[in-house]
């Protein structure tokens, strides 16, 4: 058999010169969990938690509200803010680690419920860096000409994957969704994205077990008729998050300060050109120390949504930016440096023009 090698020219997409974020949206679930409630589960105090983390409350979604439900609310607001219709979306990217189906994706369900079918739809798993990964991908899709508008959502229902009685991370975490629409622009509104990973520290923030352990325990109980392991709380068969706080803190401040500086350099801007700095809302002390390391000018507003929202992983940056703009509408049109970092370990950052 002879292979056919056609000489017919192939059509490729026609690139677009520049992109920008054109709309933002947020969904904050109704249930507010304060530190007093947290202290029912761990031996601590409101004062201790505030001093150590800066967190006063966190929002958590009720059992009947899903990741996609939260994403839908944030996305509808972002589309309305952008002034475009769902049918104009060429892509829907959802960053989440808490969509409870390994397949199909949260993104395809979201696209359908929004009325964005047949937009390309997929989830990404980059934990607390996922929103910045998504913005980087949306920028590339629009600029390459593959899509005109792309929706990026960071959404988490972390309350499904925590153990309220452990002390390393659970009390920090909240639920929520933030969304952004990326589209073409006359002037550059998204800098080069700096994305990276360090798998050597894969276990620094991670689930304590895989689902296979739960499956095997169920299988053993069903075949042996002995359910004692399933009923033993010490077995902790449902996987939940853990972190090595000291290791993560060192990496999040001193390594991420380098990434933030690298991102600013790639953007061609100086620190004084920034209007806002919106880091992942991991812990107020990480935010404070990171800002100190970057020696940002006093006029730069810093996202500090964590006090009310807790750490919402992929949702934290769009939620913080949405809030910063709601409280300070004059920042619209200015530049924001945003940086996400978390389990992987992975990081992602870029400068965007605030819509």
């Amino acid at each position, binding site marked *: 058999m002879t292979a056919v090698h056609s000489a017919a020219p192939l059509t490729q997409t026609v690139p677009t010169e520049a992109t920008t974020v054109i709309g933002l949206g947020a969904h904050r679930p109704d249930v507010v969990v304060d530190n007093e409630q947290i202290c029912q589960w761990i031996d601590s105090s409101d004062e201790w938690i505030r001093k150590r983390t800066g967190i006063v409350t966190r929002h958590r979604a009720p059992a009947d509200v899903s990741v996609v439900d939260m994403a839908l609310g944030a996305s509808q607001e972002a589309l309305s803010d952008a002034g475009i219709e769902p049918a104009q979306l060429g892509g829907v990217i959802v960053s989440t680690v808490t969509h409870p189906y390994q397949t199909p994706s949260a993104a395809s369900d979201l696209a359908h419920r929004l009325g964005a079918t047949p937009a390309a739809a997929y989830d990404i798993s980059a934990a607390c860096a996922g929103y910045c990964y998504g913005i980087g991908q949306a920028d590339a899709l629009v600029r390459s000409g593959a899509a005109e508008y792309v929706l990026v959502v960071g959404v988490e229902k972390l309350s499904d994957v925590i153990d309220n009685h452990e002390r390393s991370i659970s009390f920090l975490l909240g639920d929520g969704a933030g969304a952004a629409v990326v589209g073409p622009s006359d002037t550059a509104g998204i800098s080069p994205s700096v994305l990276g990973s360090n798998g050597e520290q894969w276990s620094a923030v991670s689930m304590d077990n895989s689902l296979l352990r739960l499956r095997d325990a169920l299988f053993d109980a069903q075949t042996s008729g002995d359910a004692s392991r399933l009923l033993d709380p010490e077995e902790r068969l449902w996987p939940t998050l853990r972190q090595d706080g*000291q290791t993560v803190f060192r990496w999040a401040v001193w390594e991420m300060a380098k990434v933030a500086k690298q991102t600013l350099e790639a953007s061609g801007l100086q620190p004084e050109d920034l209007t806002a700095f919106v880091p992942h809302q991991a812990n107020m002390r990480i935010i404070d120390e990171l800002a100190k390391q970057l020696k940002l000018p006093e006029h730069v507003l810093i996202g500090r949504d964590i006090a009310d929202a807790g750490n919402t992983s992929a949702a934290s940056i769009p939620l913080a930016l949405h809030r910063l703009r709601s409280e300070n509408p004059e920042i619209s049109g200015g530049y924001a440096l945003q940086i996400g970092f978390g389990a992987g370990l992975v990081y992602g950052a870029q400068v965007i023009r605030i819509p």
Partner: protein
Amino acid sequence: MADKNAILAGLAEIVEEETGLETEEVKLEKSFTEDLDIDSISMMTIVVNAEEKFDVKIPDEEVKNLATVGDAVNYIANAQG
């Protein structure tokens, strides 16, 4: 051999900057957590600043072994050779 008194004095300045504790409070026998009320995050900030000041590396896994100020001074002195 590194001068341990100089290391103690330098470490005390770092602790003062992070916690506001007077440098005289920072003595060799003092425990970071029990006596000086330094939590894990502040400890890491002190460690990173000490690395820079004394030009040494203190890996994450070593930090938990530094229970007292004296432990930290000895570690830094040994690391400096």
